[in-house]
């Protein structure tokens, strides 16, 4: 049982807080000879696997529709910088030259940049609204829980429009209580901080500390019980 991350989104869809509690490392390193038996391509300033899947290296499930393949993280033990090697050469060009082989490449899921996190938060903000507009029932809220096979996203929107979002393992229980606990921590340690201005990113040490301990308790116990 594990809680992956926490997002706090303000009522305009801006990300005001993000914390990664647990980031699983799914990485694979392999030595390749010429020519490469994977198809790589540029995507979002990264080099990702667009076709071919082997030895823990993941390609796209649906080619070109959802670019979720693993990205190149390092070449011969040296971390890459975006779509260039450490020396500033384009990775795809580098891998085209047979003289550079054998080459050892490390692949893994690309970490989200803070820009991407902002984008995903505002994306969820609109998905939340559409989910409520397309409701076949009267008086529906937005998306409260979104389920995939590897994680569940739980969202709690307060009356004032702030959204608390928790990503957790699908089997993790007690997330509703955790979301309300985070709201309580937010009201106590962020809102009452005289240096905090509303709707702005939260940079309060006490908020961080209390949030972390709440997550720890939630992970251990699975739930808080009604009162706490």
């Amino acid at each position, binding site marked *: 049982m594990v809680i992956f991350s926490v997002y706090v989104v303000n009522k305009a869809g801006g990300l005001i807080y993000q914390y990664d509690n*647990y980031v699983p490392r799914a990485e694979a390193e392999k030595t390749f000879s010429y020519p490469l038996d994977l198809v790589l391509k540029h995507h979002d300033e990264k080099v990702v696997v667009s076709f071919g899947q082997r030895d823990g290296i993941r390609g796209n499930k649906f080619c070109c529709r959802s670019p979720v393949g693993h990205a190149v993280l390092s070449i011969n033990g040296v971390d890459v910088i975006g779509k260039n090697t450490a020396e500033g050469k384009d990775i795809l060009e580098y891998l085209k030259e047979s003289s550079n082989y054998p080459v050892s490449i490390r692949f893994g899921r690309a970490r989200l940049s803070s820009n991407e996190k902002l984008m995903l938060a505002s994306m969820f903000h609109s998905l939340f609204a559409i*989910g409520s507009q397309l*409701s076949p029932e009267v008086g*529906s809220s937005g998306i409260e829980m979104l389920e*995939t096979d590897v*994680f569940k996203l739980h969202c709690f929107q307060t009356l004032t429009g702030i959204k608390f979002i928790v990503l957790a393992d699908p089997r993790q229980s007690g997330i509703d209580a955790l979301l309300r606990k985070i709201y309580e921590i937010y009201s106590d340690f962020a809102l009452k901080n005289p240096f905090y201005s509303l709707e702005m990113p939260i940079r309060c040490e006490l908020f961080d500390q209390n949030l972390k301990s709440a997550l720890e308790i939630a992970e251990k116990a699975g739930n808080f019980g009604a009162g706490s």
Partner: protein
Amino acid sequence: MTVHNLYIFDRNGNCLYYNEWNRKKQAGISKEEEYKLMYGMLFSIRSFVSKMSPLDMKEGFLSFQTSKYRLHYYETPSGLKFVMNTDLSVSNARDTLQHIYSNLYVEYIVKNPVCVLGHSLDSELFSSRLDAFIRALPFYSPRAA
């Protein structure tokens, strides 16, 4: 316990089929607009989920729920998308959607040479079989809703 409505989209985002059974609220826009909005939402959710996921996924997006309804999603490798809205008591409709695909769509649309793939499904046989199938579901009962 009830089934609200069902959408079938092809891989290009065309709405091939729509039917509703117990729908209390309309979206307030034309049906064409609603299909586009629904497909856009699903498309964004797919991309959102694949970026957000901390691990590699197999099935990807399965369902979401709000305070009033649950949306079940099933996508075939060929890109056909089945979307069914039910109330919250239906926890898993994956087998149902898979059944609609393999026993109704494939049987009455793919195997029907007159049905042009990629256009809205106007086969009466398909509609009636699908309607009968949905009405026979254990969680279909408009009275309780």
